[in-house]
């Protein structure tokens, strides 16, 4: 989230799209109710009338998978109703109360000129730069035109980049983009944007999305009221947006909407991804993904990051805060390899594995790992509290793939479907030669440690009780295993032992593995004055103290400052993360003295955007930062350069300083599948034609070529299906199915069916229903409901069903034979590789005999 939970109360309009937060992030309801009772309007756009919809003022059904059409329609509405009628007036110096032109012109790239080669072809549905052979784009033509160039001043501000100990690299060149502040140049982002979305008129959008025109107009009118300076609209989204073959573009679409409306960086605004797992924010920050490195840096690869020098040259930004990346990567290497990391050996960079990254290379992300198991490439597999046999798309394919493994290690609290895949109803254990280890783990209150919430707060969990029996915290298991692996390599040698034996692993207190020294590593420390073996550490107060010369070590620059009290390094309560002052001095729910929010305890990201070009807040009663004429008055920590070398920096337009151009991107060259969001149908779509362009599904969709995906056509499977969670259960149910009170409150998984579809298929309350497609067939309970209604899509009636997915064959209190993810397609988004769980095709029938 760019915002945080308690900030929800500050909004003027709430838009839920792709989120059912009242059910799946129930604490949100506390803060949303507060906003609502202060007069905020509440809109829910969702295929189903959810518990969230019940809370809202306006409910607008949408066909699963058509979000970009919905957002594109909103852009069109904003351009036609707010921008075009008022732009001339604004440029003439007149006041425009309904739209924040100052934000659009100064804080976004609307005025930037695009490369003259930039284009979009409606007929093919392709942007410029597409390569049919690899199904990828070259983003060359998506860049800006350059006005002038500027080199780093390595004698002045950037002297650190050439200091002793800093690895050599060619410093980047800042290319100042060409701009047209009147927004009239045909190649300016705004004009291209306007042209692009002229196709997204309200009739087309309604026909694509299955919406009612009046309701949609009301939604647009209500939400775009937040375009007025001083008003804030908030988008809440979750997996309903991301689990599509264009999920990352959905996320972009929301960001663009918020930029157009001036809603990013203001209290009650933001693009708020409601993260679903307790520490998924932490795992994302940690870069526990193929191509990622902790703290949003990129992992070593075989192309543009094949050496430390190449990493520095490809990753270091020419301007903005990411000019500091060399400090972050060197400090990371220094923490990783300790004294073995020196400037002479590139701080050990080559010991890191380099991810294969040529366009023709095999992919190693989640969906692909099962192909690699089927091919016998991946032979050993660790599951740390994750249950792919239940949660991965096309789950029966996953089971079959896992049967090829030599060994599997599952660390969990209960024997999950993944731990017991060999016992699945459709498996024959005697034919499966996988050795499976189950390692029992401690519960959250049986171990201490750091966790992050969706609002980027780092909070501390204290241990309350000892783990049952022989259960252990994961950090202990990990240490046991690492120690034994190191022992084997020391004793026997083996394939290049250096990356293993040069790794620094000294996180012990009193000779016992302990999470607190790991927290020191995450916060960062001065190398010369720290010695973990001696339990001595000289902690960095924050990331501004980091250096690129090997004198500082830090695993996670964004966390720096969360654990910075060297006087009591073993006491979490004495650290910023342990703060428990719940007095809200801001009056905005910032709670700045409660725990720690990364980066640097900022509660609202991009908060410079909450004030105008003179530094005056758009909303006087919701002040985050204000320029007094001499200095910045900061209610929240500044997410911009407020002072330089101790001197206050007066207001300027650099409001997004994590981007090199420091302005928000309506158009972005950073995406794999297009510079602006364009609507495509899902992998499996109920319609034959994309009403908005000539490409049916995303030209860059991943993994559709795998045989296992088994595409189904609407002629065989005419019903749109989506999957989701209920508030009483959680994900694959490993935890929630182990709680009898939750099993009692929601004892089954079900398919929600409209009354109309139930009548058509002769399904009655209490019936079991078989839901099937090319990938699988599952029998689940029927929930026949008014909350789901057939839609009119392309002028014809379209049925939609929804399935919950919390049960399967494992479990002591409640089990079902059906694994709902047997139905979902293993195709993915080209940016995130996230599967398309939210829109696919099925057919249904009343299950004869009704067996589970």
């Amino acid at each position, binding site marked *: 989230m760019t915002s945080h939970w308690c900030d929800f109360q500050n909004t003027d309009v709430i838009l839920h799209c792709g989120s059912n937060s009242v059910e799946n992030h*129930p604490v949100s309801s506390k803060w949303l109710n507060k906003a609502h009772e202060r007069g905020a309007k509440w809109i829910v756009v969702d295929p189903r009338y959810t518990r969230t919809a019940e809370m809202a003022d306006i409910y607008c059904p949408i066909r699963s998978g058509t979000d970009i059409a919905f957002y594109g329609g909103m852009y069109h509405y904003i351009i036609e109703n707010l921008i075009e009628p008022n732009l001339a007036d604004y440029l003439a110096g007149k006041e425009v109360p309904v739209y924040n032109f100052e934000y659009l012109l100064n804080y976004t790239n609307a005025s930037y000129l695009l490369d003259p080669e930039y284009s979009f072809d409606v007929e093919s549905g392709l942007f410029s730069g597409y390569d049919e052979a690899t199904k990828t784009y070259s983003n060359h033509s998506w860049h800006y035109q350059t006005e002038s160039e500027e080199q780093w001043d390595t004698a002045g501000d950037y002297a650190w980049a050439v200091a002793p100990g800093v690895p050599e690299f060619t410093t980047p060149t800042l290319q100042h983009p060409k701009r047209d502040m009147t927004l009239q140049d045909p190649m300016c982002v705004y004009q291209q944007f306007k042209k692009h979305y002229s196709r997204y008129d309200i009739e087309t959008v309604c026909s694509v999305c299955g919406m009612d025109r009046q309701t949609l107009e009301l939604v647009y009118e209500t939400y775009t009221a937040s375009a007025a300076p001083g008003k804030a609209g908030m988008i809440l989204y979750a997996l309903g947006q991301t689990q599509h073959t264009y999920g990352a573009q959905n996320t972009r679409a929301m960001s663009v909407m918020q930029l157009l409306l001036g809603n990013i960086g203001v209290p009650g605004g933001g693009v708020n991804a409601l993260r679903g797992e307790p520490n998924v924010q932490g795992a994302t920050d940690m870069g526990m993904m193929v191509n990622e490195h902790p703290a949003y840096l990129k992992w070593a690869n075989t192309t543009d990051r094949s050496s430390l020098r190449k990493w520095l040259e490809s990753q270091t930004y020419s301007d903005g805060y990411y000019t500091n990346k060399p400090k972050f990567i060197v400090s990371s290497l220094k923490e990783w390899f300790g004294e073995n990391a020196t400037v002479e050996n590139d701080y050990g960079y080559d010991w890191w594995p380099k991810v294969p990254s040529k366009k023709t290379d095999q992919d190693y992300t989640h969906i692909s790992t099962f192909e690699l198991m089927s091919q016998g490439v991946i032979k050993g597999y660790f599951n740390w509290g994750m249950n792919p046999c239940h949660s991965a798309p096309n789950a029966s394919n996953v089971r079959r793939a896992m049967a090829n493994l030599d060994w599997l290690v599952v660390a969990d609290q209960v024997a999950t479907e993944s731990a017991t895949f060999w016992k699945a109803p459709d498996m024959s254990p005697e034919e499966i030669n996988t050795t499976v280890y189950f390692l029992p783990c401690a519960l959250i209150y049986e171990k201490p440690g750091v966790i992050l919430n969706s609002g980027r707060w780092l909070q501390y969990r204290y241990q309350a009780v000892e783990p049952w029996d022989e259960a252990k915290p994961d950090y202990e298991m990990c240490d046991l295993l690492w120690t034994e692996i190191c022992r084997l390599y020391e004793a026997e040698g083996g394939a290049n032992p250096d990356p293993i034996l040069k790794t620094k692993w000294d996180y012990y207190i009193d000779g016992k593995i302990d999470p607190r020294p790991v927290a020191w590593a995450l916060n960062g420390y001065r190398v010369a004055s720290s010695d973990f073996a001696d339990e001595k550490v000289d902690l960095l107060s924050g990331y501004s103290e980091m250096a690129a010369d090997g004198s500082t070590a830090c695993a996670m620059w964004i966390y720096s400052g969360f654990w910075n009290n060297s006087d009591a390094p073993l006491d979490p309560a004495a650290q910023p993360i342990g703060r428990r002052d719940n007095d809200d001095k801001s009056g905005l729910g910032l709670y700045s003295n409660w725990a720690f929010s990364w980066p640097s305890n900022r509660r609202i990201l991009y908060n410079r955007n909450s004030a105008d070009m003179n530094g005056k807040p758009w909303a006087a009663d919701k002040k985050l930062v204000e320029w007094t004429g001499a200095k910045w008055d900061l209610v929240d920590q500044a997410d911009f350069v407020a002072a330089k070398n101790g001197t206050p920096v007066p207001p300027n337009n650099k409001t997004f300083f994590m981007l090199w151009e420091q302005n928000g991107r309506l158009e972005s060259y950073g995406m794999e599948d297009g510079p602006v969001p364009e609507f495509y149908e899902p992998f499996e779509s109920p319609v034959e034609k994309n009403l908005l362009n000539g490409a049916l599904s995303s030209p860059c969709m991943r993994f559709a070529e795998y045989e296992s995906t088994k595409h189904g056509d609407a002629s065989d499977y005419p019903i749109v299906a989506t999957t989701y969670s209920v508030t009483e259960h959680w994900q694959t149910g490993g935890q929630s199915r182990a709680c009898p009170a939750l*099993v009692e409150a929601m004892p089954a998984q079900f398919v929600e069916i409209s009354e109309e579809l139930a009548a058509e298929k002769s399904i009655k309350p209490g019936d079991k229903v078989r839901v099937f497609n090319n990938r699988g067939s599952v029998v689940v309970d029927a929930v026949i409901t*008014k909350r789901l209604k057939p839609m009119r899509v392309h002028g014809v009636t379209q049925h939609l069903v929804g399935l919950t997915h919390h049960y399967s064959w494992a479990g002591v209190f409640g089990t079902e034979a059906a694994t709902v993810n047997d139905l979902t397609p293993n195709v993915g988004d080209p940016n995130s590789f996230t599967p398309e769980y939210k829109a696919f095709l099925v057919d249904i029938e009343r299950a004869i005999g009704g067996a589970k």
Partner: protein
Amino acid sequence: MAEKAILFDTSRCTGCHACQIACKCWNNLPSPTGLNENKFSGTHQNPPDLNGQTRLIMTYHESEGTLPTKTVQWAFGRRACQHCTDAPCASICPAGAICKDEATGMVTTDNSKCVACQYCSTACPFDVPRYDGVQGTINKCTGCVDRIEQGMPPACVTTCQPEALAFGDRDEMLAEAEKRLEMLKQRGYENAVIYGAEEMGGLHVIQVLKYGVEAHGQVANPTVSPVTTLTNLMKPVTGVVSGVTVLGLAAMFGLAAGYKRDKVVYNAETEDTISLITGDVVKHGDGQDTTSVKDHILENLPGKKGGDHE
């Protein structure tokens, strides 16, 4: 302590079930643990009704929407003891196992005194008290008076994320309910009403019902069951003691309800329980007896323990 009440504002409720579950956890109430022992109701309402191990459930009721921007309405409700001022369960209980907590107005239970006669179930206009076959006692919401005594709200209130539940002095809760009602009317919920202000002499669960009384599963104009009235009429005949001292009217009630039971009298002053058949003190108030009144009654029943339907 002033009279207390739980305020339930259905317009803030998200139907999340947390109250139902917090109630179970705080009160150490079990849920079925046999494989697939729970049967799915086909809706979000599970278990479908209160039972011997469940004192509080959320209810869910779908109908066509009344607002142009809402095509459906999904009314969430709370089903649990309403803590009546005129609580027929307390007045009919022969064993003093259900009584009004004078300090708070909550209707509490004392399982050690419960004789499992289940008159309270019959008497309750809301059909709330349920028989727990394992314990051989009645199970219903106690208002978490144990928590209230410690300065904590009831478990369901504490856990409520959307703050649909609140707890405080009854007059303040009523005043707050009025404010919420006005807000809802302004938002277009024309059928919204307050429930519990006057019903049964005034309930200690005050509800703001967004879609009206029936939509949220509440009983319009609840009244004391005729059986209870009959029994109360008979009280002078058997010499009822005043105040919280309750006379067991098992035989009388038994006739009315078709049961045949032992008769006991509970004396609130000495806390002794006396059998009307033998005249013996069945259980001494000093806590020395290890057997319970319940055991005594059960021993003297023709059927097995709690054999009400046998």
